[in-house]
């Protein structure tokens, strides 16, 4: 079994064909089961809908089904012999920006749908911007409903050019365009006979083959410690292992390492797992690291390479997406979570608020409410060991938690 896992995110509103597209990917990869299909068929019929409403597959909550809208991220799964896919299906409306950000946080690929009849609309810009803000490595733009535009190459080229003009301002490494009809199935799983001018692969071909092997950071070694493993048993009397998931770089047995925050040096004596010792380990593996020397290390500490250390500072500057109806408070105190660290912090300055439709930076408006995105500064009670989000999505991300309500109120990407 050498199937890779690919996580992708889609976002959209009721009418842009997103549900139809996901439905088709699931249906054509035989991931919709008879009883699921019969259940949504019965529900569609009962509600007097024309045909089977595939959106009911992803809209799992009663309120969503009643109101015909997607409120929350739904996760869907399908597999082909080459890959296994996790789809984070998000609502696309501006009031659900926070859900889009959530779905995008772990994705390898963002799938952006454009209705060929309408071209680029506000929602297209918003999704693409969020994909770029969350540093999703690959963006695939599906120009949908080509059947309604006579499968015109001109229409496709025009939209592609317009999108490229706008995406120059974004920071996405890899953008790919595919003309499709989700409804008719053109270029989704089967190559379209209606668009002989399109020489590229289908969407499924893209999803199965896009190179995700370099999406993790394999250069800058970062090992945040989750907890210390001490068996206290006769067989493992002196065993002291540091359990964690590798956030960056490659750890090798014998490596000279630096321990943060103490700055002490040691050497990796052993990389342990239940299945035996490893010579090396890389992201996103969960392992247990044993060091040659005994130090007082614990949760929240980090093992790094001597000549490649993260930034260590109490002051951080970040882009924040706000999730709560109580607005962000300047000089407000929040709980900050970063890798395996938790500490209090205080908001310093709001540098600017970003209009996510125009990408305009508003220096005057300091009201950061629900779904707003802003650049801010934060001061932490202890030094944080971090990288820029661009360099490492794990050591570069934080969440803010309201100390009184315990709600997760913001997600931050360190600049």
């Amino acid at each position: 079994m050498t199937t890779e896992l690919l996580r992708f995110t889609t976002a959209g509103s009721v009418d842009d064909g997103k549900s139809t597209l996901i439905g088709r990917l699931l249906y054509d990869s035989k991931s919709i089961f008879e009883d699921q299909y019969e259940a949504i068929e019965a529900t569609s019929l009962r509600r007097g809908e024309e045909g089977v409403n595939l959106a009911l597959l992803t809209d799992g909550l009663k309120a969503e089904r009643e109101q015909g809208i997607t409120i929350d991220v739904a996760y869907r799964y399908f597999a082909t012999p080459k890959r296994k896919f996790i789809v984070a299906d998000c609502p696309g409306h501006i009031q659900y920006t926070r859900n889009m950000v959530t779905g995008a946080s772990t994705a390898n690929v963002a799938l952006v749908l454009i209705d060929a009849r309408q071209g680029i609309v506000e929602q297209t810009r918003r999704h693409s911007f969020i994909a770029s803000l969350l540093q999703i490595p690959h963006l695939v733009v599906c120009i949908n409903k080509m059947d309604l535009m006579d499968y015109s190459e001109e229409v496709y080229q025009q939209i592609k050019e317009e999108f490229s003009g706008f995406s120059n301002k974004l920071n996405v490494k890899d953008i790919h365009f595919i003309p499709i009809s989700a409804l008719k199935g053109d270029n989704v799983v089967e190559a379209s006979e209606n668009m002989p001018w399109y020489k590229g692969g289908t969407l499924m071909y893209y999803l199965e083959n896009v190179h995700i092997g370099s999406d993790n950071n394999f250069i800058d070694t970062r090992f945040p410690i989750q907890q210390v493993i001490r068996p206290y048993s006769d067989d493992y009397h002196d065993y002291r292992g540091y359990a964690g998931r590798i956030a960056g770089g490659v750890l090798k047995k014998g490596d000279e390492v630096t321990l943060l925050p103490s700055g002490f040096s040691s050497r990796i004596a052993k990389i342990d797992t239940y299945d035996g010792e490893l010579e090396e380990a890389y992201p996103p593996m969960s392992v247990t690291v044993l060091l040659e020397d005994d130090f007082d290390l614990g949760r929240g500490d980090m093992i790094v390479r001597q000549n490649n250390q993260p930034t260590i500072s109490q002051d951080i500057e970040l882009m924040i997406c706000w999730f709560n109806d109580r607005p962000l408070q300047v000089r407000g105190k929040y709980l900050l979570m970063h890798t395996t660290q938790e500490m209090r912090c205080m908001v310093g300055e709001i540098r600017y608020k970003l209009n996510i439709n125009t990408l305009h930076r508003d220096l005057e408006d300091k009201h950061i409410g629900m779904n707003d995105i802003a650049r801010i500064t934060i001061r932490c009670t202890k030094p944080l060991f971090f990288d820029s989000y661009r360099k490492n999505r794990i050591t570069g991300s934080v969440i803010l938690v309201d100390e009184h309500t315990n709600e997760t109120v913001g997600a931050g990407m360190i600049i």
Partner: protein
Amino acid sequence: MTYQLNHLKELESESIFVLREVAAKFENPVLLFSGGKDSILMAHLAMKAFHPARIPFVFLHVDTGHNFPETLTYRDELVEKLGVRLIVASVQEAIDKRLIVEEKGYHASRNLLQTFVLLDALEKGKYDAALGGGRRDEEKARAKERFFSHRDEFGQWDPKNQRPELWNLFNARKQPGEHFRVFPISNWTELDVWQYLAEEKVPLPSLYFSHKRKIFERDGLILADSPYITRKPEEVLEERVIRCRTIGDMTCTGLWESDASTIEDIIREVSTARKTERGGRADDKRSDTAMEDRKKEGYF
């Protein structure tokens, strides 16, 4: 040199990360163990996550008294092997104490009664996190679950107001009396579970493999003959070769006609199955939103 994990190893690593976060972030976590394949997988992953130390969680079995006998045998052997402490919360006991009232009639099931007993056990044991083997691919309401899912002081789930969950940062903060349900295998599909259990050579209860059993049909489901269920006059017993795709109570677990007698047979069967595993669960069939309704009240 390529550094790429296969999908099962990546899922394993994700689940181990979550299990370790639970051990670090909560004072008194408990692992909900039903004896089904998902909780067997959870136990196996927990063993790997803390190796060579013991699993730092107590196991809790909500025992309806309507189990397949094979489930209990398997449970006791596993607990012994892992060296963990098992707590059994009994539905029968709660009925005997008249804390809850048994359903009556042909469709009587103790499925709903489990919620009361579970919440009661969590409260008594002062458990602040309950690890469950729920998977998002199982059911549409479960598709909306977080890894760390907050429950209020009544054990209720508020699906419309869930905390956003980003990257691998899990917010485990709560008020006294509240608790969390944590689902480390959220991203596994049924097929992933089987493939992994096969790869890891994990022993499984005999119920999952084809065997002869006295059964009867009801509403298109095949149910096992048992002292816990009353048959209608037209429901006649016959012997068939069947197996379980999920294991729940004898009263609500639909059986599948199958001659899959090895785990490889099961994988072949699951990968070509045209019905979901919960398609055979009478407890889900009570309404279109049966799972969401139960989950809001505090069900698994």
